[in-house]
């Protein structure tokens, strides 16, 4: 008969063994997930690097124009005309304004990528028809999902890092451009990367939630992708109508505009919309966890 102390020691040992097994499983899931994510990440990274090279490097040519005249013209045009022409009220003759337009495209790309990352984290095994192998692991579904989200988050951070580094390098390679303050430009680049990462988090949360809640995988994926398109259209509508009061509706619909490019350049974001973004991220991921752990794993 074991005495009290021995018993306790045995329990502690077995608990610690289970714990280490859990950690191992979680790490294995995260590692596998990261490996599976490498190829898409490479593709997206190459695209953003090429985009930055072609875009940032060409700032020289844009800056060579007559900035005052451009500014006057952009000021005078009604918002709707500018938005339709895709200019919005940014001063394209400054690096910040020019980079803001570039980053809007990068933002759309980042959103599409974030949607794919979150969707794959939630649905990969279900669409591949291999979830039985995943869920027989001796860990909770919450732990599995956490591991997958961690891997996806790593990819998102790496993607944003590629964007920052390539932008900064291109900025460094930029020759002598009249009126370009490289320090200020670098700050603008950093601010936009923060914005880019926030955008990815918001769309990742929306996509994770949709993927976990929808019963049919392709519906969930479609909902996530549709959110990007709707947000983009709402963003364009907001740019067109930002003179009107009703435009706030479009702004609510478009995470791309929770902080407008002007605000990002100045390094600020409206408190209300920052809170809204944080709420979307929290509620989205929380819902994803709940729905994921309750999900009925019916065979298709």
């Amino acid at each position, binding site marked *: 008969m074991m005495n009290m102390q021995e018993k306790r020691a045995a329990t502690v040992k077995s608990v610690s063994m289970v714990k280490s097994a859990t950690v191992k499983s979680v790490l294995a899931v995260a590692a596998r997930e990261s490996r599976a994510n490498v190829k898409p990440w490479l593709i997206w990274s190459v*695209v953003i690097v090429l*985009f930055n090279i*072609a*875009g940032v490097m*060409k700032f020289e*040519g*844009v800056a060579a124009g007559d900035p005052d*005249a451009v500014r*006057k*013209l952009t000021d*005078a*045009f*009604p918002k*709707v*005309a500018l938005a*339709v*022409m*895709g200019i919005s009220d940014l001063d394209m003759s400054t690096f910040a304004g*020019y980079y803001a*337009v*570039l980053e809007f*495209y990068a933002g*759309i*790309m980042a959103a*599409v990528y974030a*949607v*794919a990352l979150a*969707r*794959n984290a939630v*649905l*990969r095994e279900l*669409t*591949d*028809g291999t979830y039985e192998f995943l869920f027989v692991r001796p860990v909770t579904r919450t732990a599995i999902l956490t591991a997958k989200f961690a891997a996806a988050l790593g990819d998102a951070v790496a993607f944003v890092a590629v964007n920052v580094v390539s932008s900064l390098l291109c900025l460094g390679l930029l020759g002598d451009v009249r009126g370009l303050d490289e320090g200020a430009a670098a700050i603008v680049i950093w601010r936009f990367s923060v914005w880019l990462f926030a955008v990815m988090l918001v769309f990742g949360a929306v996509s994770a939630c949709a993927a976990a809640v929808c019963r049919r*995988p*392709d519906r969930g*994926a*479609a909902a*996530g*992708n*549709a959110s*990007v*398109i709707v947000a983009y*259209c709402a963003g*364009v509508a907001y740019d*067109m109508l930002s003179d009107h009061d009703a435009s706030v509706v479009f702004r609510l619909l478009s995470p791309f505009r929770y902080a407008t490019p002007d605000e990002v350049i100045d390094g600020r974001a409206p408190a209300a919309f920052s809170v809204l973004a944080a709420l979307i991220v929290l509620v989205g991921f929380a819902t994803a966890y709940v729905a994921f752990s309750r999900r009925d794993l019916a065979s298709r």
Partner: protein
Amino acid sequence: MTTMTASTTTPSRSNAHASLTSRAMHVFLFELKSQLRPFLIGTVTLLAVAVLLLAGAYPIYRDSKSSVEQVIDGFPPQFAALFGVNDDVFSFGGFYRFSSLYLMLTMAIMACAWGLAVFGREKRAKATDFLFVMPMPRGAIYAAKLAAGLTMVVVASLAFLAAVALTYTRFRDDSTATSIALPRLILAASSLLGVGVLFLAFGALTAVLLRRIRSVSGIATAFGVFGFMLVSLPEMTGEDKYRIISPFTWFNVSEALDHGRYEAGYLALAAVVAVACLAAGAVAYVRGEVRAE
């Protein structure tokens, strides 16, 4: 002896031929039926975007004409021209020039999604072996599927052209709106057909080449957004050489609106790329291995 053989084989051959046609027809109709829902959703979305933009936003845009003209008067004329401001800019066609990008994006995403869905259907359902045991060559299956995809793109484009023409007639009595004539507008709007066929081909090739298609909508959105982003390269940098890699710009809407034609070189490029993608897809489809998964 030889004549006998010939006479006995001919009927059975034509029989086989008839049944091959009917089987191909079966595949064709099956694809149309299965894609009906996505097709309707996509087409309605496209028409909704078109009507919202053209009928909803255009009047607001047109009304800004006077204030813009005031500003422009203070500038030298060549500067205004550089900015793309001319007499037509506030016409319906001029507005279409700016809207076309968003319409192309919508068309690209949905055509690519149809291509992926139609050519990847059996792969997604893990039922390729059931399809390929049908007594018809794979090439015929591919052709039937392609015909279904093209039918959807063409029907959607026609519906879109009709919507554009109908919206245009709403502004018939407005001389500002009609300074670009309807035929040219229709020609410019036909660019959507080209974009649709091109992205259908991209989707088809991707579906055939990918081992696993996790999300049709995800891949289609990625393709559409790539195409959309690539437009910004020649536009922002002003370098024409980037147009080669920017499929949306192969269909030069401005050229169609201003001069009533497309650039032959880029049109040929688009045709070559579409045909090459479809041909490569066909080869891979016919030769590809059926994986047991």
